């Protein structure tokens, strides 16, 4: 009897599970059918933009595209940013990825390069052809890549010498502020655009208490924001060091060049320029809320939205959200980062000037190799990047269009890239490190400096001594890393050589040209750079006073001519 009861019970359980599975299957099939009616070709587009504007804009573009192509159905998959890397990896490896994917976050860059090779279509064959959806505009007949503000450089992957992405927007960064609160606390409705008056306004804000009795915060910040401040405001203060340490004379100050300069004594971290870098960092970060180093981006935005802080750093893609937060509560202003435009006696050695800003393509999409309809996916990207559609798409989202001639929303005018100016160390100095150990050392010291546990002279003395002692010991590690890179580069070049041997009759053939270009950029140039750096390290290459040399400039006002170095000569 017991056995019978158990069997019945177990069958009921089995039946319940079977019913559940049947229902789940039905639900999935029903959902899919609703998304993809029978007879329609479905193109799925995956991205991590959960902001309502992006989904709405893509949806509008999709519906408009479907009207032009009634046999096509476009479906969006919006995935949270935090899990995008894992999600995309599972989808690509499982062969279930959407046809079109937004690319670039959640995974290290070398993994993305591998994925571009393995899972995505190269778009190179199409970029020199016109975009058919630009017909009737001034872009008609132009090669697709020539219709982008960034010349589609944001879509090109140097390592594999192929176009792999279509960037649909351009992003910029500015200081966003609460105009009402600024006026209430400082009497000024517009934020000062010069450094000193702006810092003064910040100090006045921080000196006053809010309704809760706690002091107002001038700048809402976080660990996320700090690295951005470093890139756009602090690190450009190092521009003057280029004259001392740009050993390969490419006008860019690399971390390796800085380290070599310090280790060989050619660069003094206690020089006015470096001390001004640290001083500017301290002066600005003193206006951040206490404990910002342990906070996330969202916590800073929360502080701003609560009207407890006046300023916050915001990308153009943040502006829509910040305007939404401020809606019916306070007016928002946008300010360019107030880098000194003329010599500042409190920041000696700092080269004044506007910040360099170029249009860099963003919001990039690639076509997945496993797409059942790659030709439709490509056509949809043509559509999204055409002048009128790109304008509409970005206007709805609240971003800057990347297609030439596509107009941006008026609220974004302040984000228009400013063009020529000075610039800092690539990616700022937050990640100063020529090895794992030096990176940890630098971050430890910088963290202590950020929270005022040490001062600039302590930081400089400690790190200079460390680098002078360790730089030469780090050489084997650096050599081994470089050699590992050679093996990797060999693999990347082998394809081009293999195809050249198979397809190209002469040395002028397309694959041979690309092969030699790849060989030079990946192998010969790094070797030659290494040769120069080693020569400077061991003294066999004489850099004189500076890697650039000096130039005589005529004296002004009866003063004698003098020898000066770059960049002082350019002032």
């Amino acid at each position, binding site marked *: 009897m017991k056995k019978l009861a158990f069997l019945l019970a177990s069958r009921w359980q089995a039946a319940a599970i079977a019913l559940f599975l049947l229902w789940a299957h039905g639900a999935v099939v029903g959902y899919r059918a609703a998304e993809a009616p029978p007879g329609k070709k479905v193109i799925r587009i995956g991205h991590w933009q959960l902001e309502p504007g992006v989904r709405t804009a893509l949806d509008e573009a999709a519906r408009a595209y479907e009207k032009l192509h009634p046999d096509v159905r476009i479906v969006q998959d919006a995935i949270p940013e935090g899990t995008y890397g894992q999600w995309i990896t599972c989808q690509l490896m499982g062969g279930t990825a959407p046809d079109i994917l937004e690319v670039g976050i959640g995974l290290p860059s070398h993994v993305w390069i591998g994925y571009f090779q393995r*899972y995505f279509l190269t778009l190179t064959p199409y970029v020199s052809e016109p975009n058919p959806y630009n017909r009737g505009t001034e872009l008609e007949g132009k090669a697709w890549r020539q219709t982008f503000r960034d010349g589609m450089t944001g879509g090109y992957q140097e390592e594999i010498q192929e176009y792999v992405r279509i960037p649909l927007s351009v992003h910029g960064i500015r200081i966003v502020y609460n105009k009402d609160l600024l006026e209430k606390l400082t009497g000024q409705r517009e934020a000062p655009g010069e450094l000193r008056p702006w810092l003064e306004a910040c100090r006045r804000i921080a000196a006053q208490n809010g309704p809760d009795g706690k002091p107002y915060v001038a700048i809402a910040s976080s660990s996320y924001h700090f690295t951005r401040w470093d890139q756009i405001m602090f690190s450009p203060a190092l521009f003057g060091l280029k004259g001392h340490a740009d050993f390969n004379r*490419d006008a860019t100050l690399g971390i390796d060049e800085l380290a070599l300069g310090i280790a060989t004594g050619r660069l003094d971290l206690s020089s006015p320029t470096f001390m001004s870098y640290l001083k500017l960092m301290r002066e600005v970060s003193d206006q951040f809320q206490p404990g910002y180093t342990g906070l996330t981006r969202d916590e800073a935005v929360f502080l701003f939205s609560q009207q407890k802080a006046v300023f916050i750093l915001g990308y153009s893609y943040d502006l829509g959200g910040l305007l939404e937060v401020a809606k019916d509560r306070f007016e928002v202003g946008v300010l360019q980062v107030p880098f000194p435009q003329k010599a500042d006696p409190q920041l000696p050695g700092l080269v004044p000037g506007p910040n360099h800003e170029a249009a860099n393509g963003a919001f990039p999409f690639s076509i997945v190799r496993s797409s059942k309809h790659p030709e439709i996916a490509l056509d949809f990207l043509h559509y999204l990047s055409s002048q009128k559609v790109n304008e509409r798409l970005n206007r709805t989202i609240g971003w800057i269009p990347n297609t030439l001639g596509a107009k941006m929303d008026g609220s974004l005018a302040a984000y228009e890239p400013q063009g020529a100016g000075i610039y800092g160390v690539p990616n700022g100095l937050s990640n100063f490190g020529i090895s794992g150990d030096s990176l940890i050392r630098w971050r430890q010291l910088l963290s202590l400096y950020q929270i005022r546990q040490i001062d600039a002279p302590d930081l400089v003395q400690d790190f200079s001594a460390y680098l002078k002692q360790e730089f030469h010991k780090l050489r084997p590690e650096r050599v081994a890393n470089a*050699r590992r890179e050679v093996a990797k580069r060999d693999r990347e070049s082998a394809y081009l050589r293999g195809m050249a041997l198979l397809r190209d009759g002469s040395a002028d053939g397309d694959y041979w040209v690309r092969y030699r270009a790849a060989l030079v950029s990946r192998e*010969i140039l790094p070797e030659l750079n290494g040769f120069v750096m080693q020569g400077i390290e061991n003294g066999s290459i004489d850099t004189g006073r500076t890697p650039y040399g000096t130039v005589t400039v005529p004296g002004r006002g009866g003063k004698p001519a003098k020898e000066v170095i*770059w960049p002082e000569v350019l002032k």
Partner: protein
Amino acid sequence: MIFRAPLPNLRRISGLVRGGIVVLAALLAGCLPASKSRDSHSDADVLAESWVYFRNGEYNKAAAGFDEVMGRTKQGEPEHLQAIYGLACTWSLRRPGEDTARAAGLYQRILDEAPDDPLASWCALALVRQKITADITGKLSHAEVMELYDGIVRRYPGQPAALEALVCRETARLRMPAPEGGPAKVVPILTEFVQDPKNSAWASVGHLILASAYRALNQPRSEMNALIQSMETWDKDPRSPKKDDRTRNYWQIAVLADFQVKDAETAKKYYRKIIEESPQDKRIYYARIALERLEAQGTGPDRERDR
């Protein structure tokens, strides 16, 4: 008792599994004609497809493709050699799962079977590269590296692989001490190399190495001229967005001319090129200021024309 109950269900499931296997087998059988249709591909198509698999990191498929062509072509046929070469590259360079010994055997096979084929020189170079890239800790001296490349240069004079080997040999020679090496030794060798029209495809690289040698020898005018020559002999990849982006080279020439050679005309020419050809480049701001300074000094061509 509790554990026995599911057994009858399992039997039913295994029946389902058996059924599934039958269906799967039928499906696979259906796929067979599709795989046979590959015969319609030419050998060259399969080889190209295999190289694409290689680039995509799908090494098993690449190896299978090269294997297939190897199997159906005759010894000595160009496609046969191409297939062996592709397979050798795959086993040598795939990560993970590399088998460098097997790769070396395949390279050697081409060297033995077709020593006069152009592929032989590339195989010899590949064997040299295997030794160099395996040396992660830097046990090989620059002299040994140079000697390895020199072997290819001597064995296959004038062939593309030998030209590449020569360029690599001279790059290694730069770091060697005198009298066998060093910049002073590199200069006459590469000067002769870049002047030979037969080496035109590699002339730009040759000039680039010469520029580094002149820098080490503290001869800024020669360095500047070598950089200019390197740029003028550069073969562009017409599809690259950076094909016209020589801004880095323009900057190097301009500051060298401006600060060290004191050749204002050349400096102005290259500062201008930066401004005109790369309006988005970060160097443009100071190129403009430098140009203004030089023009204010009154040696510009405009002023000369005015005279």
